[in-house]
């Protein structure tokens, strides 16, 4: 694949970076990134992945745009209310960068469809808002040996880490989802839009660095951000020998569909 003059011009500000260059740009154009959830985290991630020239972007979302989404889900506009999120997102991507191939999945992820979907991609971004989905993505990526970026946000805080095969997974920290209703969701406890934005951008950055093999990833590290007190902290963690998925005596051998309303009480 050779870069066209238009591509060289469009991506010139990143091609001049030694971590990118023409080779790196070609890697991006040949890469496939999946974003699960076109919401608060997925919106900024999708916009930046598209602008950067990630060649194929997958979007999984079964929801329609609601007016309450617009405060943080910046890929969706007022005129998109009631439109399927995947179509709203796809339209914006086409306007930013018409060369990106967008694959849409108008569905929710579950134990029977997720492995087939993630298998098609090089890197996965978890932009979901509930624990059953987060554990499902972790487990599916573990079984499919796919790297992914985890993101969780609440109020003014967020946490993110990057899973690479053979390294620590989400269950190394949290062995199973919290019981129903115990941990509040964004719809119950609130979320400041900029927190979702910041975390989604970090997730896109991880995807881009992974594709470029550049710099350090948040692997075996959990980044904790508190925007209210403007605190950024990285907590090192290791592969946990007691992890029920990737530990020495794994109990989990297959995907689990946890009860969906576990923490999604009001959506």
């Amino acid at each position, binding site marked *: 694949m050779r870069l066209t003059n238009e591509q060289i011009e469009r991506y010139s500000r990143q091609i001049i970076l030694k971590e990118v260059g023409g080779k790196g740009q070609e890697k991006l154009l040949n890469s496939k990134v999946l974003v699960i959830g076109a919401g608060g985290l997925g919106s900024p991630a999708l916009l930046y992945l598209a602008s950067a020239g990630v060649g194929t972007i997958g979007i999984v*979302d079964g929801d329609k745009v609601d007016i309450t989404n617009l405060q943080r889900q910046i890929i969706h506009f007022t005129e998109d209310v009631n439109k399927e999120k995947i179509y709203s997102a796809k339209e914006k991507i086409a306007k930013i960068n018409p060369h990106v191939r967008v694959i849409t999945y108008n569905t929710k992820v579950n134990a029977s469809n997720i492995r087939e979907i993630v298998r098609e991609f090089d890197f996965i971004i978890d932009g979901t808002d509930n624990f059953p989905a987060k554990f499902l993505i972790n487990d599916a990526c573990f079984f499919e040996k796919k790297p992914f970026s985890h993101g969780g946000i609440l109020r003014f805080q967020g946490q993110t880490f990057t899973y690479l095969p053979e390294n620590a997974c989400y269950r190394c920290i949290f062995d199973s989802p919290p019981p129903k209703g115990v941990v509040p969701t964004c719809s119950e406890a609130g979320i400041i839009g900029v927190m979702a934005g910041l975390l989604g951008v970090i997730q896109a950055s991880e995807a881009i660095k992974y594709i470029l093999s550049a710099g350090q990833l948040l692997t075996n590290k959990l980044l904790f951000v508190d925007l209210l007190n403007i605190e950024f902290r990285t907590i090192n963690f290791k592969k946990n020998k007691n992890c029920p998925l990737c530990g020495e005596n794994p109990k989990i051998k297959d995907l689990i569909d946890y009860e969906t309303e576990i923490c999604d009480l009001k959506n």
Partner: protein
Amino acid sequence: MKLTVNGKIESFEKESLTIEELLKLKKVKMPEMVTVELNGTILEREKFKTTYVKDNDSIEFIYYMGGGSPII
């Protein structure tokens, strides 16, 4: 003793505390929902009662965080 709790150095009157006592002292809400990391290693929940922290230990309380888009 001095402990580093969530990245901040704090002084404690007692010279040793169990993780369970520390969670109470730090007024951690829903301690059963918190993952505890002691000096870089995730501690099993069953060991909160029997594991003691000592001077210069580093403890992280890690909470569940959801957020994003409802996808399931």
